[in-house]
């Protein structure tokens, strides 16, 4: 799929912009605080119906304005589709070719994206929350139905937590929520394990390609209730049975401590570098390369399912050294996906594959096409 045009109105600091983006590479460059990330965020919001850095829609609307709108034309497996997303205090619009969307999966079938931004260093060096959401997102990228399982599991978990906190739920009530938690938890863990199977081998490859052959072997595994070795798939029924077991032994503790103590919401993705957890040992640049490898693995896993999400890279240049950067650009050149890049200094990107690049200069929320690829 390719986003061949993008139009925004009163989005962040951009009053109005119209970008013709029918190219394999779309480069947005400009100084700090001009609106580069804002535009990438618009593409992401169009593909995910939410921002990656803001949950309150009010902040997405340009100051002193009442509503915001993003339009995009996608050319993909299902032909040309026009997407419109708009938000105001009074209304919320999601339209494909002028028709309101009834099922989110219809929307996600049109446009999908994978994002890399500087904050994603936290996937390697931060807490388990970031890593779990990476796995859930990767699972969603290839199988959007994963989102329903994640949401339902989270909802049951929140009900159970509220029940435990109220200290009014007897065992029978807690057990009723536990039965559901176990069913959904089994599915959640099995889906994550499946996602990990899809990611593992592409991850090793992508990491070698970016970091170079001498920089160690990086591997992935899950830890916790849904633990699985690389390449191992889990049977949801088996995980559910184990989970039920743990829930019943833990029941008294959970009631006493008024907290949910067991379940895949506490699982973690372990990224090892030569057998040592990268979380504790990776340098800044190593962490950056590992995150890029995770994202490239996500793209490759999607490709094997016949999908080609957009690849959005924000502020790439800040932390990779020259040789890693050159190798990354070679990897990007070999992809089939449309790639969006933001940078303060296009020279860092080096030469992009000729002919198939559009560049825009972003300054104070205004977007101007550059006819010449930036020198």
């Amino acid at each position: 799929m390719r986003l061949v045009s993008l139009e925004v109105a009163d989005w962040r600091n951009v009053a109005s912009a119209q970008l013709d983006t029918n190219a394999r590479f779309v480069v947005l460059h400009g100084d700090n605080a001009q609106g580069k990330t804002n535009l990438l965020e618009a593409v992401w919001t169009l593909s995910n119906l939410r921002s990656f850095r803001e949950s309150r829609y009010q902040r997405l609307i340009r100051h002193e304005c009442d509503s915001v709108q993003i339009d995009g034309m996608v050319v993909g497996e299902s032909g040309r589709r026009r997407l419109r997303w708009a938000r105001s205090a009074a209304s919320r619009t999601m339209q494909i070719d002028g028709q309101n969307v009834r099922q989110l999966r219809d929307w996600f079938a049109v446009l999908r994206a994978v994002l890399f931004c500087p904050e994603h260093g936290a996937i390697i060096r931060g807490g388990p929350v970031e890593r779990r959401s990476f796995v859930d997102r990767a699972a969603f990228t290839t199988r959007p139905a994963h989102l329903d399982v994640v949401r339902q599991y989270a909802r049951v978990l929140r009900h159970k937590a509220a029940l435990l906190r109220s200290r009014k739920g007897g065992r029978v009530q807690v057990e009723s929520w536990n039965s559901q938690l176990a069913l959904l938890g089994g599915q959640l863990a099995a889906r994550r394990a499946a996602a990990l199977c899809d990611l593992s081998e592409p991850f090793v490859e992508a990491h070698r390609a970016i970091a170079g052959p001498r920089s160690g072997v990086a591997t992935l595994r899950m830890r916790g209730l849904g633990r699985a070795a690389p390449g191992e798939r889990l049977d949801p029924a088996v995980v559910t049975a184990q989970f039920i077991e743990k829930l019943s032994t833990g029941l008294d503790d959970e009631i006493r401590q008024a907290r949910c103590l067991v379940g895949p919401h506490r699982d973690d993705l372990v990224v090892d570098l030569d057998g040592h957890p990268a979380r504790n040992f990776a340098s800044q640049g190593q962490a950056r390369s590992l995150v890029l490898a995770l994202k490239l693995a996500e793209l490759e896993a999607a490709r094997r399912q016949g999908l080609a999400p957009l690849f959005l890279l924000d502020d790439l240049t800040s932390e990779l050294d020259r040789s890693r950067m050159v190798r990354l650009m070679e990897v990007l050149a070999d992809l089939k996906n449309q790639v969006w890049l933001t940078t303060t200094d296009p020279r860092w990107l080096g030469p992009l594959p000729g002919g198939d690049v559009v560049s825009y200069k972003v300054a104070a929320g205004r977007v101007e096409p550059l006819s010449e690829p930036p020198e």
Partner: protein
Amino acid sequence: MAADPLRRCVGQLSRLPGIGQRTATRLAYWLLNQPDDVARDIGEALSELHDTAVRCEICHDVAATSPCHRCANPQRDHRVLCVVERPQDIGAIERTGTFEGRYHVLGGALAPLDGVGPEQLNIRSLLRRLSDQPVEEVLVATDPDVEGDATALYLARLVRPSGVRVTRLAHGVSVGTELEFADKSSVARALENRREI
């Protein structure tokens, strides 16, 4: 000075859920253009609603009398009791024309996040019915969402020890759809394919 009658009517109609100013205006003009007994009949029905509608003391359905006509009907099968969240859900099951048992309205579903526990629902009266009447099967027709499912599981845990079968409406009704809005054939299918829990 009396308020403009049309404006007053629009104002009152627009208090209804899902009715905006535009729809309210359209409705008011439509009523104005009908023979005057249309508006009068509607007005009478509305003004009598609170005086005449009662909660059935047995099943908690909204009805003209208590016990309601279904609870008072000796033809209806005592052995199967269908548990629903809302009075409106009874209509969805009745429309299939295939269910001949009795009903019990819970008044919602378990939702600790919203402070709804068993005490907020008509569960005590349900248990009383089970001990007073020869019920053999409790068919739980709560919504197919996490709250409806948890409620079904909870009822199963409460009721099963007494030897009563507990069944759940099969998920022929798509997830997240309230029974009230599900189409007739999918409700009929869900009834037919109910499973024991």
